[in-house]
């Protein structure tokens, strides 16, 4: 008799041949002889053979003891010999297995064990086609259960779906055995392209042939799981649930499942499936929307969504979901198909909102979230644009918009969800690809999130996304970097030192500058903008920045100095812009040059780009009455060039000029404050004192002498009173607090100011 796969007439290239010689008791000796003549040729030919010689009673005895023997015998088929004996085995065996239901229970336990040891076929890129959930063992199991349990009924549709799935799985497994040249059940990546080709899968937009193969495979595996689960759950008499008759009731049903975690009875699910099939695609009702949102917020949302998927409800009610259903992902980070990843991310968001995420910062972020439904929807939809084309964030925003419109979600939730979909990669990308000791990336993020609320939502989504990806995405290493970004961005959003517009205007200003420079080469403009410190963009009006384009469009040589001068806003004042390669003492020399050119500095702003270019802007007025003409500017430029070559000369001249200055009538008390915690990126030194010739030069010189780099400076004068803020770091980029120099610097500056 043929047993197992041979009995089922499903012999694969790598399969064993399972033969059994069945005999009545007295024929033992003849049976042994038959067995020898039957089995040896196989062994000689090297064909793997499963062999047994048994009496009827022995069969039943062994079937009682072992599930695998029992199921193998269920598949038995006569090859040659006494038909009456075969019939007797069949009837006796079935009677044996029906009694008590133990066989079915053991099949079920065996399945649970198997599913624990192997990943589900529809969930991984290299599934085990036989053992994984949704694989061939599950298919066989369904057939065995049907043989011995009359109560189990398979609808025509389910039977057809199961047949189609089995056929596909068997064909793939056969192709795998042929490709691999050996008996293996794991569909490794290396075999997928050739198998896809052999099956005739062709590449389409966004889905190459191996992906198309896997996607179809996943779909069939899920069908198997669906039928299997229905078989094993059976009619559940313990709860009274009315079968749904409308799409609204279907969603209510699954919302309840998301809340309780209980699967609805099989007949109710079947009814739901029929309703869904009959529901025309269209906009949702309010009740549907509310049920769905409740579903998403439930503790068992993932399980519920998976059940919805199995009956086709998810992509039938939300057509936008279809392109990501069963879609494989092939990169070192993602292992799950896109839809599985989305559902898992949603679960992660839900857990965080319930206070179950172990990251301590998450609980604080949750406290800042106002609109939970936006975050849940954002979690579910964030990768809905992953349909095989580049820039899934932008595509996703459109697809998510379509989903939200269909569901009927209004502003402002809609805006928040689209924000999350559009920017769900922002925190992770910034964390790993940008220098977090530089304020620019942080200001960029602050400009995008605009407030702590959105920052918190984005953080929770980023974490849930990382955790739902598998692999390194949620490693402590990465999460630490992401935390750093979030902390610093929140500080910037809180910080608002009251000077200047919020970071959110950065985007607008960049656009304005693009418009003003529309006649220039676009890529040069983009590069110019990318180099500009964000602090500069915040401090300087777009029109002025556009004027500076000429100064900054090309990189500055090491000894080069570029200046632009022109009338200032108020009559009698002038704006001076100096661009040069940054170096210690540069600001001092420029300020000093202005002073000895009899130009009083009314205000100043100094910036530094990442690539070490200093942008120093001054508003000046002539120290004595009169105009500043081109001649005078030329002389200033000469002075500046000379000052940059030798500092001693400059210092002497500054001292000379100050000697002629009359001291002010009401001197302003000198205050120096060194604030190490005002910014994450520099130590802020605030100076208030009486204005005098060469003051900025002296202060800048003092910083240079202390080995400090002035990264950013803001200088303002109010009559005799000067108020300065300097953002400084040491030459290695450290804040003063890190090296314990706060007091030293404070003292040194006070001394310098009082001596002057």
């Amino acid at each position, binding site marked *: 008799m043929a047993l197992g796969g041979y009995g089922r007439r499903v012999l694969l290239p790598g399969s064993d041949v399972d033969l059994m010689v069945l005999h009545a008791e007295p024929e033992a000796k003849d049976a042994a002889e038959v067995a020898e003549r039957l089995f040896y040729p196989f062994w000689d030919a090297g064909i793997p053979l499963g062999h047994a010689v048994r009496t009827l009673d022995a069969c039943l005895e062994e079937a009682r003891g072992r599930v695998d023997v029992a199921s193998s015998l269920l598949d038995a088929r006569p090859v040659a010999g006494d038909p009456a004996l075969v019939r007797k085995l069949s009837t006796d065996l079935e009677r044996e297995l029906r009694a008590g239901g133990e066989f079915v229970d053991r099949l079920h336990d065996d399945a649970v064990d198997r599913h624990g040891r192997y990943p589900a076929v529809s969930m991984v890129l290299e599934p085990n086609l036989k053992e994984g959930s949704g694989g061939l063992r599950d298919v066989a199991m369904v057939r065995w259960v049907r043989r011995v349990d009359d109560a189990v009924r398979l609808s025509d549709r389910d039977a057809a779906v199961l047949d189609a799935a089995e056929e596909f799985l068997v064909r793939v497994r056969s192709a795998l055995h042929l490709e691999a040249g050996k008996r293996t059940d794991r569909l490794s990546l290396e075999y997928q392209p050739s198998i896809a080709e052999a099956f005739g899968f062709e590449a389409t937009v966004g889905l190459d042939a191996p992906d198309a193969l896997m996607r179809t495979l996943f779909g069939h595996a899920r069908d198997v799981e669906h039928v299997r689960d229905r078989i094993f759950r059976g009619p559940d008499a313990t709860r009274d649930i009315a079968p749904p008759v409308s799409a609204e009731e279907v969603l209510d049903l699954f919302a309840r499942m998301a809340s309780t975690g209980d699967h609805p009875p099989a007949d109710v699910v079947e009814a739901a499936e029929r309703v869904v099939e009959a529901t025309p695609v269209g906009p949702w009702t309010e009740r549907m929307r509310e049920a769905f949102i409740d579903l998403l917020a439930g503790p068992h949302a993932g399980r519920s969504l998976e059940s919805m998927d199995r009956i086709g409800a998810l992509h039938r009610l939300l057509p936008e979901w279809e392109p990501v259903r069963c879609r494989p992902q092939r990169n070192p980070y993602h292992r799950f198909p896109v839809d599985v990843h989305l559902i898992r991310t949603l679960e992660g968001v839900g857990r965080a909102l319930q206070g179950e995420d172990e990251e301590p910062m998450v609980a604080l972020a949750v406290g800042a979230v106002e609109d939970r439904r936006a975050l849940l929807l954002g979690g579910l939809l964030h990768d809905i644009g992953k349909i095989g084309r580049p820039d899934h964030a932008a595509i996703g925003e459109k697809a998510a918009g379509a989903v939200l419109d269909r569901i009927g979600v209004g502003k402002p939730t809609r805006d928040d969800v689209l924000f999350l979909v559009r920017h769900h990669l922002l925190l992770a990308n910034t964390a790993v*690809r940008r220098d977090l000791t530089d304020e620019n990336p942080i200001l960029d993020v602050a400009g995008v999130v605009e407030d702590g609320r959105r920052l918190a939502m984005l953080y929770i989504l980023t974490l849930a996304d990382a955790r739902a990806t598998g692999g390194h995405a949620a490693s402590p290493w990465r999460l630490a970097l992401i935390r750093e970004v979030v902390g610093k961005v929140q500080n910037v959003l809180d910080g608002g030192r009251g000077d200047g517009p919020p970071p959110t205007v950065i985007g607008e200003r960049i656009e304005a500058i693009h418009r003003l420079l529309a006649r220039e080469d676009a890529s040069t403009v983009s590069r110019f903008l990318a180099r500009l410190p964000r602090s500069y963009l915040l401090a300087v009006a777009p029109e002025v920045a556009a004027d500076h384009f000429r100064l900054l469009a090309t990189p500055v040589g090491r000894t080069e100095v570029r200046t632009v001068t022109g009338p200032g806003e108020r009559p009698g004042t002038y704006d001076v812009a100096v661009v040069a390669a940054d170096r210690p003492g540069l600001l001092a020399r420029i300020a000093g040059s202005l002073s000895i050119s009899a130009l009083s500095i009314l205000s100043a702003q100094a910036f530094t780009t990442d690539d070490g270019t200093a942008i120093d802007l001054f508003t000046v007025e002539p120290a004595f009455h009169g105009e500043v003409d081109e001649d005078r500017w030329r002389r200033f430029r000469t002075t500046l060039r000379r000052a940059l070559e030798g500092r001693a000369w400059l210092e002497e001249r500054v001292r000379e000029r100050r000697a002629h200055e009359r001291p002010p009538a009401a001197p302003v008390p000198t205050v120096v404050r060194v604030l190490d915690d005002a910014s994450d990126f520099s130590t802020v030194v605030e100076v208030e004192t009486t204005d005098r010739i060469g003051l900025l030069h002296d202060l800048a010189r003092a910083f240079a002498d202390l080995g400090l780099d002035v990264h950013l400076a803001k200088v303002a004068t109010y009559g005799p009173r000067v108020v300065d803020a300097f953002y400084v770091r040491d030459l290695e980029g450290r804040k003063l607090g890190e090296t314990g120099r706060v007091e030293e610097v404070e003292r040194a500056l006070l001394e310098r100011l009082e001596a002057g």
Partner: protein
Amino acid sequence: MKLVMAILKPFKLDDVKESLRAVGVNGLTVTEVQGFGRQRGHTEVYRGAEYQVDFVPKVRVEVLCEDGDAQGVVDAILKAARTGKIGDGKIAVLPVDQVWRIRTGEMGPDAI
């Protein structure tokens, strides 16, 4: 043969990869690591809560090369990875006894 090992700031990885490719290095290994040196950890603050961070995330890049190429590899990394600010990292060159290519069994410089 040498193993050039560099500890870098994470955001410098792409620049270093490009720089290495430009000098003909086509294979390297990247690991996510943490550590401290003169650059120490710091305290993060978020919504009033403080978190002490002791280690600084870095990436470790390892490149196998022939003896004569090691300096070129080092120079490529130095150029791309330097910011001038604390925490830029370190490069070490380690001697290698032998190298095999697993697929073919080749050994020595052919395996690099």
